[in-house]
């Protein structure tokens, strides 16, 4: 019984591993598994019950058909350890050289289904994904009640293994897209996926990119509607977001939740988000261009009022803007880190004290405060935090070009951004493509 010997030596290095000897229907067996993952008393009770049933129906206890568990063929040390680390129970009968893998009663290591914390829903289902893959899949299946739904399971990584499930709808998804995704995952299955950056690498997307090629969503309804539109959804274990492939430009503006409102409102919400993105990208650049390079574009009244508010500001407009933008970005970053209880503090410090004092101290003009406040608010009108991050960077390019070339630079910067966005594609689907749901079965 070298397997048992191996587990015993292993136990010395891993305090969590238990080796429990017990009798199942008068047979002496050894159970092995992780204490932290398995609810042992419950599992033992279940096992005894099953064994009794098997004996009662006069079937051999450890035969395949007796249904206690699956038998691991050619059980070697690696396979056994894999099964244990995936949270299963290993049963080693002492009489027969067998290794049986049993699905145990798990400990509850997952929070309950809760409301989303990073996205909010005004109208629509409120439950959000959580860390448990099976729960997530279950929620999704509840939402997409369709015989077309397909799931494919993968284990990624060699050292640290991670379970992933690819969900799609047969007949809706473009077969080429599906093949591309599965090929990428299968050919890179040995890659560890600790974070989304690794996933990006696994899927073969470039590392240096401003645009994320996939959307993450915490809302099952978003994932469900992506599925029905023919996109693929990737669920990772211990990751409370669904990864929707591919991500397109219009996903920034079109939320599925919009369609829970009358069409007129849906359209105006989307329009508002587009305005938000434009505001965020263009406004700081526009301010610098108008204040330092092309003041002739302004109306005289506002030109004079800006000149008045800037009269004692020592820095050029670009430095002034960068200074305040830095503080704003710091505020944003800090408020993500801060515990919820101290959150309001940063609002007060950032908003009231900094905003007021920075003008009083003549470091920036008060028009700039208005402009940057509008910029920051507009930033989060887009859907999804990752999209907001994408948008955040674009404004710096435009800001610098505007500072040098004025309005001309603003336009050139816009063109450069548009060209960049137009270049991006995911599995051959351009980022600016307008996705249409279609039935590919005819």
């Amino acid at each position, binding site marked *: 019984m070298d397997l048992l010997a191996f587990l015993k030596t292993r136990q010395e290095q891993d305090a969590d591993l238990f080796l429990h000897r017990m009798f199942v229907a008068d047979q002496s067996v050894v159970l092995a598994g992780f204490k932290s993952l398995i609810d042992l008393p419950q599992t033992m009770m279940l096992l005894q019950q099953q064994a009794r049933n098997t004996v009662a129906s006069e079937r051999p206890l450890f035969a395949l058909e007796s249904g206690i568990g699956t038998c691991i063929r050619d059980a070697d040390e690696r396979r056994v350890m894999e099964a244990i680390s995936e949270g299963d129970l290993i049963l080693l009968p002492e009489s027969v050289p067998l290794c049986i893998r049993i699905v145990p009663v798990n400990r509850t290591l997952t929070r309950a289904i809760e409301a989303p914390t990073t996205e909010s829903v005004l109208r629509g289902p409120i439950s959000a994904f959580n860390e448990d893959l099976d729960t997530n899949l279950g929620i999704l299946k509840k939402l997409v009640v369709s015989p077309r739904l397909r799931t494919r399971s993968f284990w990624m990584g060699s050292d640290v293994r991670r379970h992933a499930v690819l969900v799609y709808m047969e007949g809706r998804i473009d077969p080429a897209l599906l093949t591309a995704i599965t090929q990428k995952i299968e050919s890179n299955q040995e890659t560890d996926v600790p974070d989304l950056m690794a996933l990006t690498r696994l899927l073969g997307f470039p590392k240096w990119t401003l645009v994320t090629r996939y959307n993450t969503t915490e809302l099952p309804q978003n994932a469900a509607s992506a599925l029905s539109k023919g996109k693929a959804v990737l669920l990772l274990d211990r990751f409370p977001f669904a990864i929707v492939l591919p991500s397109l430009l219009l996903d920034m503006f079109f939320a599925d939740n919009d369609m829970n409102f009358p069409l007129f409102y849906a359209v105006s919400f989307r329009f508002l988000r587009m305005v938000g993105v434009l505001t965020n990208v263009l406004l700081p650049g526009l301010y610098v261009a*108008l204040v330092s*390079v092309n*003041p002739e574009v302004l109306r005289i009244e506002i030109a*004079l009022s800006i*000149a*008045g*508010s800037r009269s004692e500001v020592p820095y*050029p*407009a670009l430095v002034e803007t960068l200074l305040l933008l830095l503080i704003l970005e710091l505020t944003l970053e800090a408020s993500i880190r801060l515990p919820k209880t101290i959150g309001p503090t940063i609002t007060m410090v950032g908003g009231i004290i900094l905003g007021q004092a920075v003008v009083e101290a003549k470091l920036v003009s008060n028009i700039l405060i208005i402009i940057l406040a509008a910029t920051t608010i507009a930033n989060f009108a887009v859907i999804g935090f990752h999209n907001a991050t994408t948008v955040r960077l674009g404004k710096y390019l435009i800001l610098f070009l505007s500072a040098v070339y004025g309005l001309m630079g603003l336009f050139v910067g816009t063109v450069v951004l548009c060209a960049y966005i137009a270049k991006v594609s995911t599995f051959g689907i351009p980022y600016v493509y307008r996705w249409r749901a279609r039935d590919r079965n005819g």
Partner: protein
Amino acid sequence: MIRNLMYRIPLLLITVSAAVTLSGCWNIKDINHRSLPVIMGLQHKNGVFQVWLLLPEASEGRSNVRVVSDAGKTIEGTIDRIGKNMETRVDLLHLKVIVFGQALAEKGLGDTVSGFMRARDIPAKTLAAICDGELEPLFDRLKSSTSNNGIEAYNYFEKNAGWTPQVAQTRIWQIYRSLHSYTRDVAIPIIKPGRTTTLESTGSAVIKNGRMVARITPDETLLYNLFNGQGAQGRIEVMDHAAVQILTDRMTHQSALKEGKAVLNSRLHLKVTVLETISSPTSDRIRQELNELLTTRFQRMFRELQREEADILGVGQFFRARMSREDLRDWRSDHYPHLLINFRVDSIIENVGLLNTMGP
């Protein structure tokens, strides 16, 4: 990939450094380091140009203006000298109104306006005005009565602010156009410091080829504006019996050449509403008097314009298709003085105001 990067990184560096070093961005001055004159005064005396600039003082909370002036042989040179002596750069790109002295206007604005158009440091949409009398008191008045960074004078001419159709509205480019057009002259408003108001308009100057040759009254300026389709809405017309407000105006023209003589049939369609009546005249009477008044006023003005050979109404435009270019060259001297104009006014009294008590 590495090879690609080896090319790309230097290329990127070159592009970025070129963008920074070739842009000349160190010459950019922020808005608070520029003086933005709103009004410029120009006078020509004894071979010397005198330049006044009304500069809003950019300071928070207060609105103040200051007037700087200098004299020199050329306008641009003088402005440059003012800029040299100022602590900020004088930037004419927000100049709203140029006030010419009457002497300068009578001598001719051609060179000055051409210079502005050539140098392009003054926006072509800048409004022109002519000062009745000396410029000094005008600027004194503007400085003393300002409460709004000195843009009152601009608002005086601005259509969405204080402009009324008795004041002509002519921009620098229009003067420049009239210099080079055979068939179009312009009228420039004449202003002076008002008795109780900041400014007061005393009519318009008739500018022919850049030179002031005559002046017309504010009432005639209204006709000029009507003729040019400068919607005379909201204008109150006073007669012996009533005051009416013009709601809409529309002009139709029919041009013909009869035996080499230019004939123009013009019709002014007016829709008016009655505002005020004295000893309750009938609507018909009001209409009749309005038509007569406008017709005689127009005929009088037109005769004078013909005498001065100044086509500020641009009636020559209606003959452009009927004459050769050679003929048009002599439009002002040969054809225009003999032009026969049949001017008719068709007015409709749309309503009698909120009181519906007047007879038919």
